[in-house]
């Protein structure tokens, strides 16, 4: 059998604040298989952000082992982690984090620039990724000319453009209203279902977590519970709201 995509084994993280040691993660073991859609929930200070940073290779565990896609990544240097982020991980943030001066297309191209891919191929792949999130017709505006939901979809396209093994979404609906939140969730579910992409969704809202097929609850730096969930279909929730689904047809 294939090993899981994410293997987090007995991971701990300490922060030093002066002479005080803050133990942000304690003995966390988490395995996530390919194609799963997992929600990580917990109050602020529960350690979910710390775990997210380690899973996203933005930070290193103090103790324990982290393997991603069969590769040991927990102990890598700065540049080593940058390469892992570029090749294996796509990020979606609460605040979109798009470059304000660049067009939607240029934003989506950016990860490919750091991979050293030529201009023409970058353009093609970025256009394809924008089409995948239903923004094929909105390639040229800069972020401030787009709505919040559209900006988040551009961010998702940027995360997808490198065909990563893992998509990390940190409160992706935190800045959006209910309808737009469901739109974004429906898109993530569709990418997970049709594209088979593994998604980790950090949220503190139970209604968002309810759309995941597995819910991991954190508290005080530990995993409190880890359970299967009968996922709600965000597209149906959206339809119940009387919204118009302008997502691309699932094919």
């Amino acid at each position, binding site marked *: 059998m294939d090993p899981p995509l994410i293997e987090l084994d007995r991971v701990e993280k300490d922060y030093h604040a002066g002479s005080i040691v803050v133990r942000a993660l304690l003995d966390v073991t988490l395995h996530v298989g390919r194609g799963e859609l997992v929600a990580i929930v917990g109050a602020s200070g529960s350690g979910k952000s710390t775990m997210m*940073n380690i899973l996203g290779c933005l930070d290193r565990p103090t103790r324990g082992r982290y393997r991603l896609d069969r590769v040991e990544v927990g102990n890598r240097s700065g540049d080593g982690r940058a390469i892992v982020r570029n090749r294996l991980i796509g990020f979606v*943030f609460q605040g979109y984090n798009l470059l304000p001066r660049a067009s939607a297309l240029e934003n989506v191209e950016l*990860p490919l*620039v*750091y991979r*050293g891919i030529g201009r023409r191929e970058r353009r093609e792949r970025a256009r394809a990724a924008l089409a995948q999130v239903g923004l094929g017709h909105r390639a040229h505006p800069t972020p401030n000319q787009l709505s919040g939901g559209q900006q988040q979809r551009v961010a998702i396209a940027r995360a997808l453009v490198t065909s990563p093994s893992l998509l990390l979404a940190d409160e992706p609906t935190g800045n959006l209203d209910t309808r737009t939140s469901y739109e974004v969730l429906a898109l993530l579910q569709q990418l997970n279902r049709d594209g088979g992409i593994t998604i980790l969704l950090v949220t503190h809202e139970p209604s968002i977590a309810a759309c995941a097929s597995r819910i991991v609850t954190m508290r005080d730096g530990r995993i409190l519970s880890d359970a299967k969930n009968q996922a709600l279909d965000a597209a149906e929730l959206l339809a119940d709201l009387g919204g118009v689904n302008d997502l691309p047809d699932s094919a």
Partner: protein
Amino acid sequence: MTGARPMTRLFASLLLALTAIFHAKGRAALTVLGILIGIAAVVIVSALGTGVQQRVKSQIESLGSNVIFVFPQSNQRSGARGARGGGGRLTENDGRAIVREATSVSTVVPFLQAQAQVVALEKNVMTNVVASTRRYLEVRGFSVASGANFTEADERLKAKVCLLGATTKENLFGDADAVGQIVRIGRYPFRVLGVLARKGQLPSGEDQDDRIVMPAPTFRSRIVPTAPGRVHTLLVSASDPLTVGRASAQIDAILRQRHHIAPEDEPDFGIHTQAEFLKTQEQIFGTLRALLLGIALVALGVGGIGVMNIMLVSVTERTREIGIRMAIGARERDVRMQFLVEAVTLCLFAGILGTLVAFGAIVALARMLGWSMLLLPQALLLALGVSVGTGIVFGFWPAHRASRLDPIEALRHE
């Protein structure tokens, strides 16, 4: 594909830099002012250097490198030393002795001069009246453009005849023919025998063509009453440019003997060769160059610190952007390269503008002061090289700081 990677990244960095600079135009313009001045100074210095070399060469050709100037000089300790014509005396007999005894000398001519008012028809100019023999033209490398030189008979008879320099002729007669015309110098009318061909300026900026040449005896009796045979200067022509040094030594020995001056005593005459004039010139330009080079270094230093400052501000302002770039896979060296390219681009802009300013200054200086300066392609390469160098030196630290940011902290930055 692998080969294309560094270029792809560099090109992307360049585009980014241009965008970033464009979005902060005013700030960028103020920042690069120091660099601009520095680069302009560098270019002017190098053009000045090249110009001086070219100039020295052309002046050797213009004056004749084998000309030696001998002039009387006070040797009294209390007297004003170095003032030409003060104190000692020099005569045509001294000149004859030099021609007779010095083996490395081919010609000696007397030389006297005075400022005088010259009138032709209704035109009235102040000019330099020079008196010598007919061989003066040959010693100083003048030639007659129209008309003829004066003759030995003119010299003997103190004839009231003269030759006009090209500038003087123009001032008095414009485009009209001057040969055969009468000009009044002081109280006496002189007939113009000929007009000299144009020769250009001396290193001192003096116009060699603004002069009137006449026989020395005429000068002594009609312009400035002077004892027969007395001269202001003896112009000596060495037989060859290579024997100028030896000729000087011979002249020194002969004149010391004639003037009864012991070898250890200070002479009552001075000897100047063309090489010494040129050396003085070079010293002046050397000082000027050192000064400009100093200005260049200070301006580049100040400008460089300005660039460093603005880059630090830029890094702080764009901390979040750096965080985003790092999150999606920018390595330390990618971030460093981005800001380094931005600093270098900024300096390169300044360098190009500075080169244009320098070009304007060079043209203006050449017009106003008659300095010949040459802008060589090497100078442009130097300017660009110095710009890039300044960008790298002063951009490195801000770029390094940007590359060492922690992505998590940077992403949290507002």
